[in-house]
């Protein structure tokens, strides 16, 4: 086996003490950067590239450092989602749904360790997938054209319907608002500026960080003020830090399913972790049916998105390594870093510089292991955040949020916009509108509209392009399945209902 030989060689490179320390430092820095709302893997990786270069790190070590920071940031992002209900980036929106309720029940430590475990499994599955199928996966990634992406987005939006719960109308309105907001700014197909009112600040639309921090962080600050006014604590201090065996066993099948799903979606350039986590969460919610307490702190609801994020974070490396195409914003920055080292990611990399590729894959394995080893003892430290009194914690959140928003554009316009969005978000929350459908609608909406129109430009307006390929047909079948599942359940309940009186 060539592959195993190369992988062994890769581990040989990654396991030297020097590189192990590099990986450790990388995961630590990554966790800290990711912890800060508004700063994510892009910042972490962009930050360390010049450092790695200035330190004169050899290419393998630099890659290991970057991979470690990348995964560390992904991990750090969930800490604020779980403990404070502030998702720092798009993919962790789903983590708040069950993570925060868990923290409110005093299970913050359990939620953190369970999410670390889940994303470890996800990443492990994905890395194994990379080892086994990397060259094949390149074909899967390029098979997705605009039509395929459009149908995929339809699937995701239909899956969003599962979020409706007991307030379908409000969920619907929130999702529509998100979809609408995604149309702000320049229209990528026609170049028309939509709803910008001549302001250049929204020429590219609303930045996601501004939206998410406004909706979640600012509104949370205002809600906390109310609670402080009435003398309530936000989140109970946490007792247990580690999940127990029963909890791990309870989510194991979820881990497996969502790991595969996250990997398959993570490999697609541009779809990424957000889509993967949303679809994973919805699918698990559907599968759990009435037996789940999704949205109220169900461990499965936490494990599903976390596994998917972990898997897709690694999956995003596949298009980068095999095609030289960035699978996400972070990998775009990484490609820039690689070119500095005269490494051109792309089809030739596997042939010409296998040691780099396999070194990177091996370092993904190691960084993942490092993360879990490093972070489980640190959970105690993280949960201490909750012991900080509100009068200190809230100004801290407010200032960090402002920095996160300012860092996007370096203009104060965004700060005002964030406050405005925050007030709106606060009212929405008071009126019992769910905010996560809004955010997902915002992310998926842009992709859905642009890909539909791209597909139609390709086909010259022929609608049949939307169902002519095997992938589109397969995805439509999944859409139908997703729509049919609740009907099946209703039918089954009716059948049961009929049987019960018969027995009585």
């Amino acid at each position, binding site marked *: 086996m060539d592959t195993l030989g190369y992988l062994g060689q890769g581990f040989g490179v990654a396991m030297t003490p020097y590189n192990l320390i590099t990986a450790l430092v990388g995961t630590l820095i990554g966790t800290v*950067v990711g912890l800060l709302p508004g*700063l994510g893997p892009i*910042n972490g990786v962009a*930050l360390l590239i010049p450092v790695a270069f200035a330190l004169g790190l050899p290419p393998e070590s630099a890659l290991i450092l970057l991979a470690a920071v990348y995964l560390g940031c992904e991990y750090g992002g969930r800490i604020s989602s779980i403990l404070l209900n502030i998702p720092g980036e798009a993919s962790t929106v789903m983590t708040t749904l069950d993570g925060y309720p868990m923290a409110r029940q005093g299970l913050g430590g359990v939620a953190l360790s369970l999410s670390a475990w889940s994303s470890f499994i996800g990443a492990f599955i994905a890395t194994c997938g990379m080892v086994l199928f990397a060259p094949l996966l390149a074909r899967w990634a390029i098979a997705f054209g605009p039509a395929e992406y459009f149908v995929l987005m339809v699937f995701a939006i239909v899956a969003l319907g599962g979020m409706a719960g007991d*307030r379908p*109308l*409000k969920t*619907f*309105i929130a999702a*529509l*608002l998100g*979809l*609408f907001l995604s149309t702000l700014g320049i*229209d990528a*197909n*026609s*170049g028309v500026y*939509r*709803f910008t009112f001549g302001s250049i600040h929204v020429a590219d639309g609303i930045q996601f960080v501004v939206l998410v921090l406004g909706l979640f962080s*600012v509104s949370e*600050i*205002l809600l*906390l*003020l*109310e609670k402080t*006014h*009435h003398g*309530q604590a936000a989140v109970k201090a946490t007792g247990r830090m580690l999940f127990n065996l029963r909890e791990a066993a309870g989510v194991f099948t979820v881990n497996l399913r969502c790991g595969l799903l996250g990997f398959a979606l993570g490999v697609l350039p541009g779809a990424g972790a957000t889509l993967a986590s949303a679809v994973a969460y919805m699918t698990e919610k559907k599968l759990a049916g009435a037996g789940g307490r999704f949205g109220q702190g169900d461990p499965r609801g936490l494990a599903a998105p976390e596994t998917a994020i972990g898997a897709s974070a690694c999956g995003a490396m596949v298009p980068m390594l095999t095609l030289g195409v960035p699978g996400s914003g972070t990998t775009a920055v990484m490609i820039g870093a690689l070119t500095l080292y005269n490494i051109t990611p792309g089809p030739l990399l596997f042939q010409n510089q296998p040691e780099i590729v396999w070194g990177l894959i091996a370092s993904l394995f190691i960084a993942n292991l490092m993360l879990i080893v490093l972070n489980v003892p640190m959970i105690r430290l993280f949960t201490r955040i909750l012991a900080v*009194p*509100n*009068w*200190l914690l*809230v*100004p*801290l959140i*407010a*200032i*960090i949020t*402002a*920095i996160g928003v*300012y*860092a996007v554009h*370096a203009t*104060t316009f965004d*700060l*005002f916009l*964030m*406050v405005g969005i*925050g*007030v709106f978000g606060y009212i929405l929350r*008071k*009126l*019992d509108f769910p905010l996560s459908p809004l955010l997902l609608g915002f992310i998926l*909406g842009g992709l859905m509209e642009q890909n*539909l*129109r*791209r597909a*139609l*430009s390709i086909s010259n*307006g022929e609608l049949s392009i939307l169902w002519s390929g095997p992938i589109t047909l397969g995805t439509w079948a999944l859409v139908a399945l997703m729509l049919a599942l609740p009907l099946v359940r209703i039918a089954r309940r009716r059948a049961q209902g009929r049987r019960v009186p018969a027995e009585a």
Partner: protein
Amino acid sequence: MLFQRLFSAGWLIACLAFAAIAWGYHAPFSYEPVGPRAFPLLMLGLMAVALAWQLLRPVPLRQAADEPPLDRAALLKVAGCIGLLLVYAGLFEPLGFIASSWLLGAAMARLYGGRWRAALSCSALLSVGLYLLFDKALDVPLPLGILGFLEI
């Protein structure tokens, strides 16, 4: 309930106004039949219908078990907090990060029940510490403002 209705009504009007604006969008060059205005119009249309429904038959709000009722004093505080954040946004660049964050931090700490002395000293530490963390360690450039003379 009344507030919810008013809010929905306002939102509905905004929706229709946006739709009116969207109606005017057309591309000088269009390579597909959908065009730049169809998607926003569809979203706004659906949203308007949903909002109209909501306006006619508002769903009574569920009061979460642990949620305190909103009284006048709390509302005033919330309004004050929003005001503070807006002032902060306005002063962020002119005063610089450290000075404006110190002011915001202290005022907010007071609002959230901290003592004067603790509020002033902790927020001073916070603003300087965060400046060093972000500007120096994490390479996120922050404005120095009135403290610009400190850096040579």
